[in-house]
């Protein structure tokens, strides 16, 4: 950036300027500025959930869109996610105290036979960056790992990743087991991995195929809002 401007004192900004500034700071991955912004809004009496949604999640949505559109790449998004997580760390205990709705909880891992985990790690980091709670099962997970963790953690989403053409079919084994046990509808099932496609996701009975981490985040948010609406209606 060529332009030299005066330092901005966050605490001197009115709310309507501070929030967009925090969006910019998230975009730039400025962790300390995000922590400071969150604390200022708390001092000004903002509800933790309002800070989460309006300052942090809204800012990460801009990041996610620019990632999807090829303006930002993984490194920038991870820095933004790290900044978001730092803000989230301040809010988390307060959110629990105030009984705010949670963004959602996801159990994620690579399927049995698959040791390729970088895609899964990226999705996990970006989901955390969007405010989700992530239970990372690591690599090479048999059916039981997914189902036990999903039940124990009361997860909303089960995410499976596979990079190999030989391990992709195992995703169907997990989903079929969920159907057999009558628990399939308790969870949103999202799948991803380089060799997969939309058609494959449908064929094995997943709720969604995530082409990349940005899509995963958007899809998870979309599923969660529908779930919340259903709960409100039901």
């Amino acid at each position, binding site marked *: *950036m060529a*332009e*030299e*401007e*005066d*330092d*901005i004192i966050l605490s001197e900004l009115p709310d309507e300027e501070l929030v*967009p*500034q925090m969006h*910019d*700071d998230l*975009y*730039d991955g*400025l962790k300390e*500025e995000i922590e400071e912004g969150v604390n200022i809004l708390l001092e000004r009496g903002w509800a933790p959930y309002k800070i989460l949604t309006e300052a942090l999640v809204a800012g990460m949505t801009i990041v996610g869109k*620019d990632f999807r*559109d*090829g*303006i930002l*790449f*993984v*490194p*920038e998004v*991870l*820095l933004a996610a*790290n900044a978001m997580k730092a803000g989230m760390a301040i809010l988390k205990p307060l959110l629990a105290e105030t009984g705010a709705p949670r963004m959602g909880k996801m159990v994620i891992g690579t399927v*049995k*036979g*698959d*040791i*390729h*985990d*970088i895609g899964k*790690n*990226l999705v996990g*980091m970006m989901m955390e960056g969007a405010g989700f709670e992530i239970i990372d099962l*690591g*690599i*090479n997970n048999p059916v039981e790992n997914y189902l036990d963790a999903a039940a124990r953690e009361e997860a909303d989403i089960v995410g499976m990743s596979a990079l*190999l*053409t*030989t*391990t*992709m*079919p195992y995703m169907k084994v997990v989903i079929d087991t969920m159907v057999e046990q009558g628990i399939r509808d308790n969870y949103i099932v999202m799948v991803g991995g*380089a*060799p997969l*496609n939309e*058609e*494959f996701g449908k*064929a094995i009975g997943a709720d969604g195929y995530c082409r*990349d981490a940005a899509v995963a985040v958007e899809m998870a948010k979309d599923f969660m809002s529908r779930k919340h609406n259903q709960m409100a209606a039901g």
Partner: protein
Amino acid sequence: MTDALSRLFETRDWLLADGATGTNLFNMGLSSGDAPELWNVDAPDKIRALYAGAVDAGSDLFLTNSFGGNASRLKLHDAQNRVGELNRAAAELGREIADKAGHPVVVAGSVGPTGEIMEPMGALSYADAVEMFHEQAEALKEGGADVLWVETISAPEEYKAAAEAAARADMPWCGTMSFDTAGRTMMGVTSAAMVDLVEKLPNPPLAFGANCGVGASDLLRTVLGFAAAGTERALIAKGNAGIPKYVDGHIHYDGTPDLMADYAVLARDCGAKIIGGCCGTTPEHLRAMRAALETRPKGPRPTLDQITAALGAFSSASDGTGEDADAPARTRRRRRG
């Protein structure tokens, strides 16, 4: 003192590298989930067969079975303490097969990514990455590898760390990145940016290029991007045999030997000097590639349209180079000092 690869470069305009390691090992019964590197010790005859498959099909250079042989990857199999043993064995078996070939064959010690995300985005420090790669490089050298072959890298820092490890091990090296995200690596590196990265290294590689990624078409677009950036260094094209397709419950790569033969010839026309395959490429594909490279004349550099006409469509409209380099940027409202 010259190395085996540089000597081959002096007499040859192109070299055929090998095909897939994983695909061929699965065909030999490797069960998914196991570390292929363990076979260097537990099933050495199968690794010999893997290497011999490439050499018999006409490869001038093959990669050792050590792609996941760094401590970070082996840790997933609780074998992080076996880096030296497994990589040494990978290279020793390679040396044995290469020396029996009766003509010069280069043993390239495969070094794959750590699988970790580097600082500041992730947890892996540059120093730790160099150390891990160096540990692996020394073992491959001891086992008799002619060059180190760094592959499927996404992050510039990781590429640099591998380069530094090669320098520490005093080994000549080659290094490819995987351009799998709209013509860029996962970490956003374009073909032009990789040329810039390579030329700024204190110990640049003997050859560099692209491997894996999406399909053969995308890979050649990337090679054209290297050439357009004006590099004089030897280029590597190691593309997948097509794209995996899900058909009737089975998955297979859709690239036929004939398609890979066309790809090989086009890769040479694009300016690649080392041409091979990646995932899905079997000895049958390599034979067709060798025959095509030997019998068909070198042609002019193909256009993008000629590439897609022969090999299929690109996965994305742009690859972030040329006129597209001025990609939309978000205008910053202000910046804090």
